[in-house]
Structures are given as C-alpha cells and as structure tokens.
C-alpha cells in the first residue's frame, strides 16, 4: 500500500469522497481495522464480513458483445429450432413481448454446425472454433435473464443493475470495493472497437450516486489513450511544466494556511496523479513492447481480427499493470443487433472476436494470470428462436447465454438451461442481479456487504435482489 503524506482527514466520509484514487472499501476496512462503508448518509458499518470468501479473482475483463449476440447460434444448442423451422411458436409457449413486434413470425432454424468440445463436451457452434478449444475453461451460463427488452434498458441493466439510469456501474462497484493496484492508472477502463457510441453513452461506465473517482475511463487504442491526456497543440512540455510548477507555487502556501481542509490537498494530489498518468498511460497501451508472436496469437496480423485482438491484448496489459476492471465492447453501438441477415452480420462479428478471445485466454493462462482474472463474455440479451424480417432474430431478455472463465471459475461446465426452443430460461435462472452478485462472489466480496448509503438507502450492486450462484466455483 503506497503511503502518502496525508493531511489529517476530517472524517472517513471526507476521505472517501475526496481521495483521488487507490483505496477500496475492503482495503480500508482491513487497513483501519474498523468497519467502513461510505455513503452520503455517512453511516458506517461492519466490513469484516466483506472479505474472507472463497473467490480469488482479482481482476475482471468483461467482453461485451453489444447489441445482443444470438445464444441459439453460438453456445446454446437447440436442435428443436431446426425441426420446427418455418413453423409458428407452439401454443404451449407463452408469447413474449417483442421489441420489434413481429408477433407471428415463424421459428428460424440455425444453420450452424455444432460439436462437443474438450473433456467436458461443451457444445459450441462453428462460429467460435478458437474459443471452443478452451471449452474446459468455460462455465457457460445458459439461463441468463434480464428486464430490458430494448438496448437502452438492457445495456443499462447489464452495467448497473437497473434498466433506469442513475446507478453506479459494476466496474465502479468493483473499484469502490477493491480499489486499484496502480495509482497511476484508473481502476476501471473501457475500450470500444470503433468510434461509435455505446448505447446510453458514457453513463454506462458512470458512477451514478457514487463519487466520480470510481468512474470508468475510456481508453482510446489509438493516439492518446485518455482524453485530455496530452497538452494541447502549441504547449510544449517545458511550458506545461513551468505552468504546473507555478500552480504548485500558488497552491502550496494556500493549502498550508488551510491545513484543516483536506479537499485542497486532495485536489493538489489529483494534479500530481494526472501528471503521473500522463507518464504511465501511453506506455500501458504501447503494443510495440509485445513480441511478434503475441501479436500474431491475438490476430493483429489479420484485418478482421486486428481491432478486437488489439483490444484484448490491451486488456491483458492493463490487468497486468493493476487495472481492476476492463470492459471491452465489441460492436459498439448495437453491432450485434441482428434484426436482419443474422447469418451474415454474426458471422463477421464472431470471426472478429473468436481468435482474439481465445488468445486472451491462452495468454492469461500462460502468464499465470487466468486464475486471478475473471473473463466474462456476453451481451445485454440474447435473441429469439423466431425469425424476424429477412433472416434476423429479435431481442430475447428472457433466456440467454453468457460465459465466464478464469478467476476461480470451474471450467467445462454448462449451467442452467433454456426451454427446448431457447426462448425462456427454465433451470437455474440467473437474473442480471444474480450475475452481478456472482461476479462479486468470485472476487471474494459478499455483495450483500458491499454497501453504499445514498439518500437513506443502503444501496447494493444487485438492487437488493441478487443471489450469488456459488456453484460457479468448483
């Protein structure tokens, strides 16, 4: 734990409120020997129960297939949709509310070739041949459920637990709970695969009612990784340094004469941190330090895998350097949303992520990082067994697939199930709240204990409704 020259802190609440980075609630609880959970209510309580859990993941890499990948064509094998291809949804199935409202559309089969992989014999379609080789590392959760039938609600819930805005993102909760291990980099980093905006924009990685220190920071893979990281044109380094030194010359005596005001010190420190970030961040994304072999592994040499491959490699580098939570978006701006011609659009997207994701798993494993890095794959929902327009599928939040690997997850496991058509989750349903609780569990955090008091309510990542699915750990 780095040791800074803190001025006396007026209260724990102030400390958390103004701290520029670093300490998570869990670490603080351990540090101070006293329980601590912060919040605008200022209440404190026991933190001992926070830790001491079997989970051993330290970092998370969340691979978001934004727009909703079809589980029926990737990881959830349903031969019945091929048998009923072209027929109407049998009357025994409750008709779902459909985002696009094509209520009488017929069932559409999947033209994929399915095979069982690894010792575990997990079913994976031919769209993920590389990932399939890691079948024995994957826990494939086939019974995910969300409340959002539209992208905005779905993406918002997958990120924050609520279809409604205003709550902190999962990455913010993890950063709040565990803090960052690298003072010079943000604890929560987001990288997209294109310039397009993710649905709902930056609030997906926002902090809602929590302090802004926990917000996700968008890294651009090209040029300057963080916005405003570089001095603007015409400001050479000497000039910038001169200005910063003069600023310190003004701020130091000002703060010294007001030693009781920890906010002044915190702001001075934030400038120092920013300065160090300027030094460290470009190196963190500098792939010239990687071997040609590694780059090939991630598919940087092929056009269709280059972008996501680069992002996966960046994710590994960031996690290695102590970034707690990395979120990679594939198909930013609902790219996976295939209302028409799913066959074509999914084929391209799957090809663009399959090899890079497999490489990420291979690479993490080779470096001994997989055990402590939880890799999560999925979108905000899946897709319907029914066809829509020309060969597409509509949104399906009532049953879809996500998978996890690493971070102590027992691989080679299929968890839960949808019905025979893959429309509704029927066994071991895991709502997004449960998924969030489970992710916390894998990180060694009891999600019912990680609390932030806001407007008199003890808030949790799971909106008080989730249950950790403990069978994820072997």
């Amino acid at each position, binding site marked *: 734990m780095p040791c800074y020259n803190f001025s006396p802190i007026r209260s724990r609440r102030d400390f958390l409120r103004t701290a520029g980075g670093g300490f998570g609630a869990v670490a603080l609880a351990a540090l101070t020997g006293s329980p601590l959970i912060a919040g605008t*209510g200022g209440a404190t*309580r026991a933190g001992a129960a926070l830790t001491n859990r079997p989970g051993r993941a330290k970092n998370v890499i969340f691979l978001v297939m934004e727009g909703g990948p079809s589980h029926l064509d990737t990881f959830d094998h349903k031969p019945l949709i091929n048998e009923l291809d072209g027929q109407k949804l049998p009357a025994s199935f409750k008709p779902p509310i459909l985002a696009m409202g094509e209520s009488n559309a017929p069932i559409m089969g999947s033209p994929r070739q399915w095979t069982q992989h690894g010792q575990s014999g997990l079913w994976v379609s031919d769209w993920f041949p590389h990932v399939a080789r890691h079948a024995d590392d994957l826990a494939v959760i086939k019974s995910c459920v969300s409340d959002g039938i*539209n992208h905005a609600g779905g993406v918002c819930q997958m990120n924050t637990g609520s279809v*409604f805005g205003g709550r902190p993102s999962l990455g913010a909760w993890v950063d709040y709970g565990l803090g960052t291990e690298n003072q010079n980099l943000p604890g929560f980093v987001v990288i997209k695969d294109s310039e397009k905006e993710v649905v709902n924009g930056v609030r997906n990685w926002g902090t809602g009612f929590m302090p*802004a220190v926990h917000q996700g920071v968008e890294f651009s893979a*090209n040029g300057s990784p963080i916005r405003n990281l570089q001095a603007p044109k015409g400001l050479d380094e000497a000039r910038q340094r001169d200005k910063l030194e*003069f600023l310190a010359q*003004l701020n130091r005596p000002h703060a010294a004469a007001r030693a009781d005001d920890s906010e002044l010190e915190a702001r001075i420190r934030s400038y120092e941190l920013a300065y160090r970030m300027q030094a460290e961040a470009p190196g963190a994304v500098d792939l010239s330090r990687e071997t040609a072999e590694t780059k090939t592994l991630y598919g940087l040499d092929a056009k269709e895998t280059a972008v996501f491959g680069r992002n996966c490699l960046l994710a590994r580098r960031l996690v290695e350097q102590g970034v707690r939570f990395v979120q990679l978006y594939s198909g930013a701006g*609902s790219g996976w949303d295939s209302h028409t011609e799913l066959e074509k659009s999914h084929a391209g997207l799957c090809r663009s992520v399959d090899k890079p994701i497999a490489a990420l798993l291979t690479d993490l494993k080779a470096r001994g990082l997989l055990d402590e890095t939880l890799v999560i794959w999925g979108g905000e929902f899946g897709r319907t067994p029914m066809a829509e327009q020309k060969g597409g599928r509509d949104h399906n939040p009532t049953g879809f697939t996500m998978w996890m690997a690493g971070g102590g997850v027992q691989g080679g496991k299929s968890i839960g199930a949808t019905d025979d058509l893959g429309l509704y989750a029927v066994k071991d349903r895991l709502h997004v709240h449960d998924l969030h609780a489970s992710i916390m569990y894998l990180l060694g955090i009891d999600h019912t204990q990680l609390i932030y008091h806001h407007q*008199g309510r003890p808030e949790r990542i799971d909106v008080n409704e989730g249950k950790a699915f403990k069978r994820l750990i072997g």
Partner: protein
Amino acid sequence: MKIFWFPLIFTVVGMSRLAAAEETRSGEIFFETEIRPLLARRCYECHGEKKSKSGLRLDSAARFAQGGDSGALIVAGAPEKSLLLQVIRRTDPDLQMPPDDPLPATEVARLEQWVAMGAPWPASVAPVAGLPVDEHGFTAEQRAFWTFQPLTHPTPPALAGKRWARGEIDQFIAAKHAERGLVPAPAANREEWVRRVFFDVHGLPPTRAQVTAFVEDQRPDADERLIDELLASPRYGERWGQHWLDLVRFADSDGYRADFLRPAAWQYRDWVIRSLNADLPYDRFVQAQLAGDEIAPNDPDVFVATSYLRNGIYEWNQRDVRGQANLIVDDITANVGEVFLGLSFACARCHDHKFDPILQKDYFALRAFFEGVLWRSDLPLATREERARSAEKLTAWETATAGIRGQIEELIGPERDRLVKRAHDRFTDDIQTMMDKPAAQRAPFEQVVATLAARQLEYEVDRYEPQKALKTPEAKARYATLLAELQLFEAIKPAPLPEAFVATDAGRESPPTKMKARRGGDREVAPGFLTVIAPEEPLITPLEHSSGRRTALANWITRPDNPLATRTIVNRVWQYHFGRGLAGSPNDLGKLGELPTHPELLDWLAQRFITLGGSLKKLHREILLSATYRQTARMAVPARAALIDPDNRFLWRFSPRRLDAEQVRDAMLAASGELNLTVGGPVQDAGVSTRRSIFTLRRRNSTNDLLRVLDAPAGFSSSAERQVTATPLQALLFMNGEWPLARARQLGSVVAGAADIWQAVLGRVPLADEKRVAEDFIARRTAAGRLGADEAAGAITSEHAVMAAGRFKENTARERLLVRGAPREGDDFTVEAIVHLESIDPGAAVRVIASRWNGERLSLDSHGWSLGVTGKKSAFKPSSLIVQLVGEDDNMNTAYEAVASGIVIAPGKTFHVVARVACAEGTVSFFVRDLDSAESGPLTTTVKHRLVGKLGAGAATPVIGGLYRRGPHQFDGRIDGVRVVPGLLDDQALAADPSRWSALGAMTWDARHALPAGYEWQAGVSGEETADPRIRAMTDLAHVLLNSNEFIHLH
C-alpha cells in the same frame, strides 16, 4: 437516545456526544442489516413468538436480555465470556446451537463482532412480536421519532451569545456553542463576505466594481442593502433554480438510448427561475408543480409547472407499455417523497420500511395520487382565450384550404397511414385492443396505456417525410406544387401556439393502484397520506376532467402544520447556504438520515417560514444577515473544535466549500469577460454557449464534460447534495482541455498585467509575494515565448494574407463561416468546392471544408454530414477526401459512418472537389480534379454506406471551414467557393469556377463576393498564436489561476 444498550463499561474519553450518537447509529444499522435477519433466520423457529425452547426468546431486546434457563446470553463487549458465542462456536459438547448444522463462520464472526460492539439493539423500529403496537402496527418508539412530531414552537435561548448574536438564529447557534465549549469564529471581513454572498445568492463572483462599491459603502445598513439588491436581481433565481432542478432531476432530454431532446422542457426551467425571482410563496410553488393543471387549467403560467410530472426518463420505442407506465409512476412517487416530504419512500415499495414507520401501503397510497397522470402533447401553453382565437383562425384557414389539403392527403395519406398501422401492429394484442377502443370507452388504466402507446404512433407521423416517401417524380412534383399552393394561405394561418410539456389526469377516474404484497397477492390501495402522521382519509374533490387527487395531496403537503414538508424545505435552504443541513441528509429525514444538530432551530425556522408566508427570499435574508453566516472560513482550527467537532456541524466557523460545477463554469466565463447574461429560452450546448450554465443544454446521456467532472448530476434521480471529487481526469481537463484554455486565452488577451488577472479570477489584488512570483513567471514565459516566436517567425503568415478572401485560419477572426437560415438539402445532395489546403492536421482530425454537423454521433441532434480532408494520423488514407455522415440506419438507429474516398488532396495545391451523397442509393460518389495540373483528368470513386436517411434532422447550422461545434476540425487555407445543392448533380453541371454555378443551391458561397445575408464569420478563440509572447505569457498566467485551488474553493 432511543437505543437499548446492554450494560457495558465504555470508555468515552475524547469522544463527543455526537460521535457517540454516530456510533450508536452505525450500531443500529449493523443490527438491523446483519443481526436481526440472522437471528430471524437461524433462531426464531425455536426461540421466537411460536416456541420459546429453554425459556428463551430472541425476538426482542428485553427478552434477549432476560436470557433463558441457562442464564444471560452475553456479556456485552466481551464475546469470549458470552454464552451465546460458546454455544454457536460449539465449544461445549452439551450445548450447541443451532442443533443440526453449525452456523457458517461468517455468521459466527458477525455475532461476535456484534457482541464486541456492545450488542446494540435499537428500540424496535419494525414491530417486534410481543411489543405493544398500535392499530397501524407502529410502536411507541417509532411514533416518537423526531421527524414525525408536530412542529414545536421553540423560543430562542435568550441569554445565549448576547454580544455576538445578531438575531434569533444566532441565539440557537450560540446556545449549542456554549454547551460544547465552542467559540464562534471572528466575522469575515467585507471582501470575504461579499464574495461569499455573491456566489451563494447569484452563483457568480462579484465584479471588481461591485466589491469596491460594497467595501467602500459606509452606510450603517450597507449589508442589508446589498442583500436586498442581490435577492432582487434575476441572477438569484438562476442560482437557486439550479438547486431545485437538481432535486426534481430536470434534463432537456429523454434519457435511454435515443435520448431525444425535449424541445419544450426549458419552459419549466424558466418557470422555476421566474417563480423564485418573483418570490412565489412556497406552498403555491409546490401546488403548481403537483397539480397546476387542476388548480388553474387556463393559466399557462401555472399549468406549465406540471412539467414537473414529466421530468422522469422516457423511452420512445418501448413496446412493453404497461412496464413503462408502471416505471413512470414509481419514479414520480419516489421523487415526490424525497423532494417534498424528505422521506425515502422507495424503500417501502417492496415491504414496510425497515427503519422508518412507512408502511408498504403508504408507498402505494402516495403512488395512487399519481396513478392517473397522463403525459400530454396536445395542450399548448396558452390561455383559453388565446386557444379559442387560434382555433377560430385555424378553422378559417382549414376551410379555405380544404380542397388543397384534401388533395395532399390523397397523395401522402395512404403511405403515412401504412407506417402508423405498422407501428400500431407492433404492440401486443392486449395493448392494441386498448388503443382501438374509442377514448370514451376506455377504462382509466386503458386510457393511460393507450395514450402512452399512441405517442409512438405520433412519432411515426412526425418523422414521415412525404417528399422522400413518394415514389415517382410526378408525385414528388405534384406534392411540391400543392405545398406551394398551400403556402399562399400562410398569411391567414395562425402562428402555432407555444408547445407545452405538461401533464393532466386521465380523467375523473383514476386507474386502480395495486400493491404488490409478498404474501397474499395484490391488493388495491386508495390515495392516502403517511399513516404515522395523517391516518385520516384524504378529502378528494373530483373535477370534471380530473380526479382532484393531486390537488388534495398538494394541499396536504403545503398545510402549514405538515411537519415533514416544512422542515424539509427550510432544512434545504439552510443546507444550500451553509453546505450542510441542520439535518444532514436533506432527502431523508428518516432514521437512516442524520439526526438534526439543532432540532429547535430547525423547528424555529419552520415556524418562521410559515410566519413569513412561505417567502424564501425573506428566509434567505434572515440567514444571510446572521452572525452565524458572517463568520470567517479563514482561521486556524481551534484545538477544542478540532477535537469535538472537526466537521463543523455546530458552526463555529463558516465551512469552506468547493464551488459547484455551474459556479465554476459561470465564474470562468465571468473572469474572461465572456459571460452572456441572456435570460431564458431554448438552449445550446455548454461547450458552445457562453450563457450561464443553467441555460445550457442538459442531455442525460452526454452531460457537458466540464460540468460532469465537477460532479453535476445527470438527471436520473433526485440529487440533494452535490458530490465533491477531485480526480485526475478533472485535473487533465482543467490543464489540457480546450474549454478552460480558451477562457484563459481570452482573459490573457485583454489584461494589462498580473494584477488584472488576480482581480478577474480571484477577485482581489495579489499580495506582494504573489506579485513577485507572478512577474517572474511572466518574464520567464515571455522570454521563452520570444525564443519560440523567433524560431517560428518564418512560418507566421502576414495579417494581410490571413484576411485575404476565402482564407480560413485557426484562431483568427476568420476561422469558420456560419450559414444561417439555409434551406435543408435533404438526404440526396451534392457538395461542390474549390479548395487550397495549407496543411493537414498532424493528428487524426479532419480539416472540414463544409458541414452541417455538430461533431457528435449519438442523438438525433447530431444528425448531419461533413466533407473534409483526413489528418496525418488518420486510420484512413492521410490527406484524403472524406465524408462523414450521421443519420438513421435500417434499424432506425442513429448511426455514424465515415465514407472515405481514398483520393489524396495534397496541401499546397488547388482542387475542385465534389461529393454526391445519396441515401436512397446508400452511396457517396466523389469527383476530384487537381486544378494545378492542367492535363490531369478527374479522379472519381463511389463508396457505399449504410445510412438510409434523416441526415437533415440534426440541430447544427451549416458551416464552411469547420463544424458547428468548435473542435480540432478547422480548415487551414483557402476555400474559393462552396455550394450545397439538393439532388445529385451530373458531371456536366459541375464547374471549377463558382461564378459559373447556377443559383440553385441550398447554399452557395463565392469567396470573391461580399458575404450574403445570414453568413457570419466566427472568430477563433483569440490570440494564442498571435505570436505576441507577452500575451502568451498572460494567457499562461490566467490559465494557472483558473486552475488554482483558490479559484475553485471558497476558503
């Protein structure tokens, strides 16, 4: 202290009573969240209401204390001596509990911790079996909680602070000082006080003249005069209106994915500001927002306030209409509870509140008042007379144009109706049934759902573009002719009445409110107030078209004797003045909030507020003129205060504060002299506008960067307290961001010396030391700048050349050319230009030739296009012609597309460039000719894109030489002419000489001619690159001061 502590020897040396109270509260919370559920789950089965094995019951504090047959269960504070721990640790083979499976280690640890804490067990909040409860299920302790008590009539402690106090407020404060041995801080000097009151009341720093005028005002009532003057200024409502907008989660957009703009939402914002400036009594302020439509349906200045009921977020294409209707009413309910009553009702949505006496039934009873709320788009902001007059004119116009309109309808109606029908059929059958019924036959709930669903059909009508949808050229031509004919009647057509963003009830009847009980299924709940203080049935008088429910609620909330509402508002006012409420959690005065430090003062203020007739201004005046408010913030913290009240809860000085986001932005503009004080009306993005922050666009999904890093709320839930964070991202934005730098450049270019900058930014003269280091800095920077300038001298272009016709240069007076009032070019158009670039961007930015785009990619507002040349680090071919488009894709989503030609436009040469953008075809075809090489033929290429239209739906004005929103996209060089023409021009119609362009452009500009009407040069952000090293040094100094802690913190 309402808590049951087990006997415990407890060292309290050095612990203030308040700290002890805090400790108590955390103990209570620990018990309620950890221990009680654990006991209930693991123990109650055998040791509870039904069974009490071994004579032991664990379901109440008293019974727990009693112990069972084996004696006392615990020794508080000593787990190792406690029987309870021996039993659950199973150390004694004869006595192990629970009998079957051991408790998990974490639960044992939790109980151990609880005993170590002294086993706090709060006086029962949730009714505990066996303890006496009243007919509503509340215990005596619950009822006794301070929040729910009637307002008392405290008398100011007469003897307190005799010499110090200026008014009754101070007497209360002084009494607490005396109790705690605290000494109030000396009064702030005039400079400190005047800066404080300006920021507090106006949200702006005082000007130099205002400071001088006040400091030199020798009149005995100078303070009173200043306060009266400040409160009478329109700037007051602009500052305090922001507090209210935070509470009611106001924004100018829908939230959710599309985040559509709410073009009429600003009228509510302006109403709030106007009402505060007019000192509208608080009860009327509240009533108008909750029930303005019922109270004064024909007074637009009252019913506009029902916009409050629409501040929540909305998703335009949500097919789960029931679900969305339910979310909307839940969101209103939660907000009303927090904002007007200071209670967190949302906790009671799923169960009785765990800490406060709020029943689940109370939540639904509050919700019932809003069950019938209907979002209306058919009510203009006009009086009945204005509406009648307009309707009369409209009838005349309709009669006169019936024939033409009939023909238009025949032409365009069928396709439009087909689109509407398609939207209709997307809903599930039950929703369609509701929509298909005549309104009169719908049940109230059906009316709510059908109205919400119908908005999606209205949207189809709004976005239907006949000219595009018509298939044949003949039909298009005919449509144009008919429109032209219709245009002839424009003179007799009434001007449209102002659009309103308001709500009413669905009708006289409201839909039933169903409480979702965890046991026993749903149950219908009638409107009702909070049972614990007002169990009576509300008196509701239905109106002809409205349930009258909201009026009944508003009347109850604003009853002078409603302790919750009155305490809540006066506590907020106190909080905004002092940085912290007398009760520390202003949106939650319940048990999980903080106890008030000065309960008597809070009640006194509430009574005073009632006496003052609910006048906020009069309340402000008393607070602002108090000795408490006058204390300095600048003092070394006395040892005793540091020990017993380091957080300054008892106000032994004025608490230092960081400025709010809006205060910072406004103060920066004020410092640079750019602040535009135009009042009200529609708004612009905060990155472009120089108006006060409250008059800038609040987009939920894309809050302005500067405001966001300074913790401005995004508008999803009520925000009663601003966070104060200092993050590295904030520092990076302040140091490197374009916006603060632009303010510094402006300020640096108009000042004479360091002292001016100190005055402008910090409102004071520099101290001798500061002056010296500042002058050193200026000298150093000037010298360094001169060195750099000499080196760069060759590159500096002469003023004459910069101003030459058609010359565009960053950071000069002719940076970009705005084209106002140009007709829209549609989705198929041609852009043609003659350009001569002097440089391309060294980074990845595009040098823009022409655009109709604000540079964003997310919302409908950002729809548009640009034509330009890529930068050196572009992912596309550097220095090549590129078109960027934002429009709708075939999923009807807003999408961005970069369409690269791959054709190089080299700097230093003149080119004739053409881009034909076609959405119908999904292509852009490029045509480029190098005019400096006579022989070279044109290069052409056609590139596909996936946008289908709506390029023209955006909000940006066309711009030549840049984008509408300034960024790194300025053109650098000469543009001899530009035209934008609807339709796709064929090669014969192109010309490399603007004088040969036939005038059919949506915009046509020839650099050699005088500026046409509507064209306006935009200057860059002043003199950074004017090569004057002294101005550059001044800019640096100004920038440093704008980054300084003294500027951001009032301390």
